[in-house]
C-alpha cells in the first residue's frame, strides 16, 4: 500500500515535470527565453505583498468553487454548469444589493443578506440542472452547458436592460455600489480579509463534511456505485440533488464574493472562468479536499503572475492557461499510464 503511494506520487511529479517541459517547448517555439518567463511569473505573483494579495484575491473564488465541485465530483457528477451557477449567484447578490441599498438596514446586514441570496441563486441554478438529470434524464453535462448560456444571456440582458447604468448600458457592467456596501478591505489592497476567511472556512467545512460524516460517505457511495448505494439504503436521488445544492451554493457564494468584494457591481463576465478553472483543480486533486487549497493557490499564482508577461516579454498572459491545462492533461495521462502499468504487474505476478 505505501509502495503504491510512492509510485503514485512519483508519477504525479513526473506529470509536473512533463507539463513544465511542454510549456518550455512552446516558449522556445515562440523564441522566448523560458527562464525569463518563469522568473517573471514568480516575481509577478509573490514578488511583493501587493502582488501576493492579488494572488489571494484570485485564490478565494477558485478555492470556493473548487470545494463545491469536490462535492459534485464525489457524487459522480460532472457539474459543467458551475459557471452559470457562479453567474446566478452574482446576479442574485446584485439584485438584493440593489433592492436594499436605499433601505435603512445596516450595511453589514445588507451584505450578509446579499451573500445569502447569492448562495441560494447558485443553488437554485444547480438544482435546475439536477432536476433535469434526475427527473428529466438530461445528462448534467448537457443541462449545465445549456444553463451556462442562459445565465450569460441573462447577465447581458440585465446589464443592458433593466439594470443598465443611467443613460446607456455598457460592457463595463452595472452602476458600482457605494463603498458602504463593499466587503471591508485591507487598506491599500484589493483584498478583503472577510472574503479570505469565508473561503478558508468553507474548504475546512467541506473537508470535514466529506471525510467524517454520514452525509459525505453517502455522497461518495452514490458517486462510486449508485446501484449498490441504493441497495444499501441510500436515497440516491435525494443525495444527488443535495450534491447539486451544495456545489451550486458554493458556486453562488463565489459569485457573491466577486460582486461584494472584487467588482462591486455586476459585469458581463462575472464568473471570469473560475468555474472551469475550478473543474481543473477538482480533477487535479482527485477528490482529496486536503489538496484543494495548495493547488488552487498555485493556479491563482499562475493567473496573477502571468499578468505582466505581455508588458515585459510581449507574451500573451494566456500562457498561465496553457500551463494549467497542460498540467491537468499530463496528470491524468500519467495516472492512466500508472494504472495500466500496475495492472500489468498485478496480472503478471
Amino acid at each position, binding site marked *: 500500500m505505501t509502495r503504491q503511494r510512492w509510485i503514485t506520487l512519483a508519477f504525479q511529479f513526473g506529470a509536473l515535470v512533463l507539463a513544465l517541459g511542454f510549456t518550455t517547448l512552446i516558449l522556445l517555439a515562440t523564441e522566448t527565453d523560458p527562464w525569463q518567463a518563469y522568473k517573471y511569473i514568480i516575481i509577478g505573483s509573490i514578488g511583493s505583498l501587493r502582488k501576493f494579495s492579488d494572488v489571494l484575491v484570485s485564490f478565494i473564488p477558485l478555492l470556493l468553487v473548487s470545494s463545491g465541485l469536490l462535492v459534485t465530483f464525489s457524487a459522480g457528477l460532472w457539474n459543467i454548469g458551475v459557471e452559470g451557477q457562479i453567474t446566478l449567484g452574482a446576479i442574485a447578490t446584485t439584485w438584493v444589493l440593489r433592492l436594499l441599498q436605499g433601505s435603512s438596514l445596516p450595511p453589514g446586514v445588507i451584505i450578509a443578506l446579499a451573500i445569502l441570496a447569492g448562495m441560494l441563486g447558485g443553488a437554485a441554478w444547480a438544482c435546475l440542472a439536477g432536476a433535469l438529470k434526475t427527473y428529466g434524464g438530461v445528462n448534467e453535462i448537457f443541462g449545465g452547458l445549456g444553463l451556462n448560456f442562459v445565465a450569460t444571456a441573462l447577465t447581458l440582458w440585465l446589464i443592458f436592460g433593466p439594470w443598465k447604468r443611467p443613460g446607456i448600458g455598457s460592457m463595463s457592467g452595472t452602476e458600482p455600489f457605494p463603498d458602504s456596501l463593499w466587503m471591508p478591505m485591507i487598506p491599500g489592497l484589493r483584498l478583503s480579509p472577510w472574503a479570505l476567511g469565508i473561503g478558508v472556512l468553507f474548504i475546512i467545512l467541506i473537508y470535514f463534511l466529506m471525510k*467524517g*460524516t*454520514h*452525509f459525505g*460517505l*453517502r455522497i*461518495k*457511495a452514490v458517486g*462510486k*456505485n449508485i*446501484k*449498490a*448505494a*441504493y*441497495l*444499501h*439504503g*441510500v*436515497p440516491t436521488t435525494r443525495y444527488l440533488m443535495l450534491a447539486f445544492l451544495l456545489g451550486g451554493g458554493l458556486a453562488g457564494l463565489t459569485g457573491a464574493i466577486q460582486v461584494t468584494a472584487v467588482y462591486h457591481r455586476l459585469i458581463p463576465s462575472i464568473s471570469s472562468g473560475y468555474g472551469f478553472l475550478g473543474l481543473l483543480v477538482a480533477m487535479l486533486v482527485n477528490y482529496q479536499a486536503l489538496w484543494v487549497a495548495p493547488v488552487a493557490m498555485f493556479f491563482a499564482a499562475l493567473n496573477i503572475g502571468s499578468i505582466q508577461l505581455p508588458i515585459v516579454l510581449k507574451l500573451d498572459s494566456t500562457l498561465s492557461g496553457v500551463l494549467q491545462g497542460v498540467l491537468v492533461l499530463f496528470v491524468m495521462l500519467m495516472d492512466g499510464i500508472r494504472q495500466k502499468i500496475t495492472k500489468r504487474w498485478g496480472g503478471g505476478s
Partner: protein
Amino acid sequence: MEIKLNQICKNFGKLQANQDISLTIPGGTIQGILGENGAGKSTLMKILSGYIQADRGEISLDGKSIRIHSPADAIQHGIGMLHQDPLDFPPMRLIDNFLLGQPGRLFPDWKSVVGEFKRLCDQFDFSLQYDTYVDMLTVGERQQLEILRLLWLGAQVIILDEPTTGISSLQKQKLFETLKLLAGQGKTVIFVSHKLEDVEALCDRVVVLRQGKLVGDQLKPFNAKKLVNSMFGKPVSLKESKGHALDRVALELRDLALEEERIQIKDIHLKIQAGEVIGLAGMEGSGQRPFMQACAGFLRPVHGHILVDGRDMTGKNYPAFKQQGVGYMPAARLEEGLIPGLTLSEHFTLAGKSEGFFINDGHWQEYTREKIQDFNIKGKPNSPVESLSGGNQQRAMLALLQQPLKLALLEHPTRGLDIESVIYTWSKLKERCCDGAAIIFTSSDLEEVLLYSDRILVFFSGKVSAPLSSRKTSIEQLGNLIGGKDWATIAAGVEVAA
C-alpha cells in the same frame, strides 16, 4: 458444407472452457449443442465464428484446414453466427442493418439491395418491412433480419446461440421451419441450447457438453434420459434439507403477474413461511430475476399482491420493502452489490444505522472487525472491497445483509465459491433462517438447490411450477423440468405429493 473440429482447447486462466473437443458436422444437417450454463457451448461457438481464438486444435471446412482470426474472417469462409442478443443497431432502419457488414461502396445500390431483401423475405415467408426501424421489431423478427443478413453475406453455416429465449411459440415455430428449410438447401445449422424439447423438435443430431468436455453424442431419435444424465453428470445422492420453517408467513404472493422486456409471468400463488428456504431452479433468463426483483420492490407487478410479513407491499418501492425487512443480494458483486473505492468499514457504516451527523469511526471500525471475524472475511476494516477476493466479497455482502431480516433474496449466493466457502455460506444463511428469515435464492447448481432448499420453484421461459418438495424431487426430474420437459406430469404429481 462439412465442418470438422479437431481437439479444440481453450483456457481462460485456470478455467478450462473447452477441452479436446472433436466433432464432425456434415452439411445439410441441424446439429444441436446441448449443455448447462457455463458448459463451454458459447466458447466453442465463438471460436468457430472468430470472436475468440482457440489455444489449440484445428478447424476444417470440407476437408480443408482453415484459420479464423475474426468474425469477418469467419463470414468470408461462410460461417455466420446469430447471437443470443441480436447484434443490430436499433435506431436504424432494417435495410441499413441489412447492409451493414457488407464490404462495399460508399453509395450502395439501394434498388438492388431492396430487391434482394424482398426476395429473401419471400423465400422464407418473413413479413419484414425494409423501411421500418429495428427498435419496432420483436426479438423474433430481429432474428429473422439477422438470418437474412447472414445469408446475404453468403453464410453456408449458421450458428444460433440460444435463439428460442424470449420469442413467442409462434415465432419459434417459424424459426424452426426456416432452419429446416436452410438445412434442406444444404446449409449447415448449428443450434446451441439448454432446452431439451427444442433440440428434440429440431435437430438431426446432438452433442452434449459438460464442464468444457464433450460428454455425449446422439443421432435422432434421441434418448432424453441419457441426454439429461450427460448434461448434469451422475445423479447425486441427496442429503436431507434442514427445515427451519416457522408457523408464520414471511411472504405471500397472491395471483401475481409480472412483465419484463422478454418475459411474462402469470398466476403466481405462493406462501413462504418464516425460516423457510426456497430455491429457484431454471436456466438463466427464465424469469427468476424479475420474480426476485418484484419481491424486493424493484419491479412493480402488473397484477396481484405482494405481502411481506403480513403487510401488503404491492406498488411500494425498494426502500419500503427494505424497511419491512427485505434484503437483496445481487449476483454482480462489484457492479451492484458493493461499492468499489470504499473500504469494508465504510460499507458497514453506510449499511448500518447512522446516528448523528458525524461518523463515530471507532464504533464502526470495531463493528467491522466483529463482522470480519464472524463471517471469516480475509481483509481489514480499511481494505477497499475491490481488493478482496471474490469469495471474501461474497462473505462481505452476506455480512452486510440487514438486521432484522424477514426475507432475504439472494441471486447466486455461492457462484464462483469453492466448496468449503459454499458450505460456510450456507451455515451462515441457515443461522439467519433460525432467526426467522425466509430465504429465496437462485442457483444454476441443481445439487445446491436440492440440498439447501425446503421447496423449489422451477422456472421455464416465464412459467413457474408449483412449489416442489426438495425431498421428493430428484436431480433428473429437475433437469427435465428446467429443459421444459414433463411439465404436465411431474409438476402436477409432485404438487400433490407436497
